[in-house]
């Protein structure tokens, strides 16, 4: 008996070890390397010198780069809000569908993941470009007279971002709405709540965890995505992601790229932290 109890305990480190190794090698290691790199000095043509410097961080404070950060944050907020506005009703009504249609819609939501994201972005070029599919439809139906010139603009990037991150919001909202017991909404109606009141005080509150995780799932990747801004923004829209990529591959200023990455990580974490603080309080109060 004793052996039976002790055996798993003594071997438990063996099952945990790979997890720790993986974390150290692939997550902690690169992270430390990146932070270290950000404090080094750039060599003239290629590589870095191990000489402590905060020059890279000072460089970020320049208005050009600060603006890039601000634009990135703005776009991320816009993307998150837009996915929430579209994704919430979508996920909500999807949860209300009959089993058969639910499966079908779920399939349609997930199907884009089967194709490479880059390829899907090129699809948007065909739609957005001057005299492309969208212009053609709008001009034929008489809604616009001249081409919209949507491609290589801020709205195009926003649409692309919303498009690629929307499924995360939909699925997060869907899963929390589907778990909800609809009889509590009926109970609210029975107790005197109008449809809107029942939605605001019951449905919205109970599906809040879904909304919260949806926001995180959309906001974090939206801060770092750069290929959408490249393909649909045509270089006109510069995000932190693009900046880092350019510094790394074009300018080859590795310390600066590392510093930008560190700041991006800190900014994102800061937003998540504030967000957690706010929503946690709201969730607990549970007032009408």
């Amino acid at each position, binding site marked *: 008996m004793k052996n039976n109890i002790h055996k798993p305990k003594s071997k438990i480190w063996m099952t945990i070890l790979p997890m720790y190794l993986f974390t150290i090698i692939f997550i902690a290691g690169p992270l430390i390397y990146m932070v270290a790199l950000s404090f080094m000095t750039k060599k003239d043509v290629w590589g870095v010198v191990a000489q402590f410097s905060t020059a890279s961080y000072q460089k970020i404070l320049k208005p050009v780069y600060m603006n890039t950060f601000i634009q990135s944050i703005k776009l991320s907020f816009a993307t998150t809000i837009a996915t929430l506005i579209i994704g919430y009703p979508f996920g909500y009504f999807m949860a209300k569908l009959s089993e058969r249609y639910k499966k079908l819609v779920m399939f349609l939501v997930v199907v884009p993941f089967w194709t490479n994201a880059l390829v899907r972005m090129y699809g948007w070029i065909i739609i957005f470009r001057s005299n492309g599919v969208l212009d053609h439809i709008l001009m034929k139906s008489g809604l616009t007279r001249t081409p919209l010139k949507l491609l290589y603009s801020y709205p195009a990037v926003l649409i692309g971002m919303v498009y690629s991150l929307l499924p995360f919001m939909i699925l997060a909202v869907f899963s929390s709405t589907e778990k909800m*017991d609809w*009889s*509590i909404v*009926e*109970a*609210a*109606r*029975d*107790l*005197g*709540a*109008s*449809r809107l*009141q029942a939605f605001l*005080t*019951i449905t919205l*509150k*109970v599906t*809040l965890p879904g909304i919260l995780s949806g926001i995180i799932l959309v906001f974090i990747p939206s801060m770092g995505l750069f290929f959408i801004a490249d393909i649909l923004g045509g270089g006109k829209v510069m995000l932190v992601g693009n900046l880092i990529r350019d510094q790394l591959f074009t300018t080859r200023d590795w310390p600066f790229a590392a510093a930008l990455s560190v700041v991006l990580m800190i900014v994102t974490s800061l937003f998540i932290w504030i967000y957690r603080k706010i929503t946690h309080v709201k*969730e607990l109060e*549970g*007032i*009408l």
Partner: protein
Amino acid sequence: MKDIILEIEHIEKSFGDTQVLKGINLSIEKGEFITLLGASGCGKTTTLRIISGLETPDKGSIKLNGIDVTKDEPNKRNVNTVFQNYALFPHMNVETNIAYSLKLKKVEKNQIKQRVAEALQLVQLIGFEKRMPSELSGGQKQRVAIARAIVNNPDILLLDEPLGALDLQLRRQMQIELKNLQKELGITFIYITHDQEEAINMSDRIVVMKDGRFEQVGTPHEVYDLPKTSYVARFVGTANIIRGQIETMEKETITVHMKSGNVQVKRTDSPLQIHDEVTIAIRSENINLIEENDGEKIQIVEGKVSKDEEPLGLTGIVKEKNFAAGLLRINVELIDGKEITASRHGIDSTLEVGDRVRVSWKPETYVLVDMVDKYTKNSNSSILQNTLEPSLISMSPDVTDGTKSTKCSLTDIPAIDDGKE
């Protein structure tokens, strides 16, 4: 005339192709305790949802205090529901759950506090104000659901199988508490259950539902002792349903002929003729079993049968003895193969499995049921043949279990007989 609080008129409701309610009518007086009794799927929950406004009827109307509310949203009706699964708001504690309707009505904060405290007092949950629903037991959740519904002082309280998920002991206790609560508050209760004992214990009137129709509406006494249809007789209490043909009609009595013998029943006002098919319901506790042993007759279940009545009765063989909940049930297979159940208190019985018995009852303890059915059936002789087939059914409250145990006993009997010989 008493105050009529709710009038249900010709309500019909279909979901897709299935008609769930087929035209129901009911008037409910203020302060009444009404129970809708029926098997699952008979439309009782739909009836309740239509009263609360969560469902709109296809036809018919609902009048609350004389005002037509058929088209009114549920939040416009002063009717509250205790849901089957309690439906407590998971993100609110006990206090905020109960205060929900009052907050919507914008009642003053001090008053809310006072009324929530009163409601908690009524359901004996003082001290649980800050608990979340997930931290409560089934019985406590039940109490919160009741408190939440009564805090609003509804005209009618609707209860959808509120005790269904509780264990037997707690259920009995809650039955008494609910009944007391209803007396104390004077609120009209409309209560749903599939448990006939619950219905009989608590209600002023019982509505027996079957397939979207009201089979019978009446006091517990009426429904139990004077069932109108064989369904009511079987569903409420244990009744044996026997079909036979009228052989002779005298001034006071009617003799009914069956394959396994003749029985006598009291004559009623019903327009019956000789050779009419009739259905008789007899409660198992009213059945006498007399052992037939070389012409010597011993009576074993209380009630006296004089020698003059001897020729009447049905002949059969004891198939099974089963003791449950203080009642000894004796299944008798009649010579035509049908089964009948007699019951008596205690476990004592001189009858053994395999004994030949004569089945009889006092003429006044039977009820003629399905009088309406009789005429529709008579119009078509082929249907008559079919309906005659299950002419004798033994019924216990749990119908399916009864038939299962019967089947068991049939296979067991030869072995027991062998042992005896």
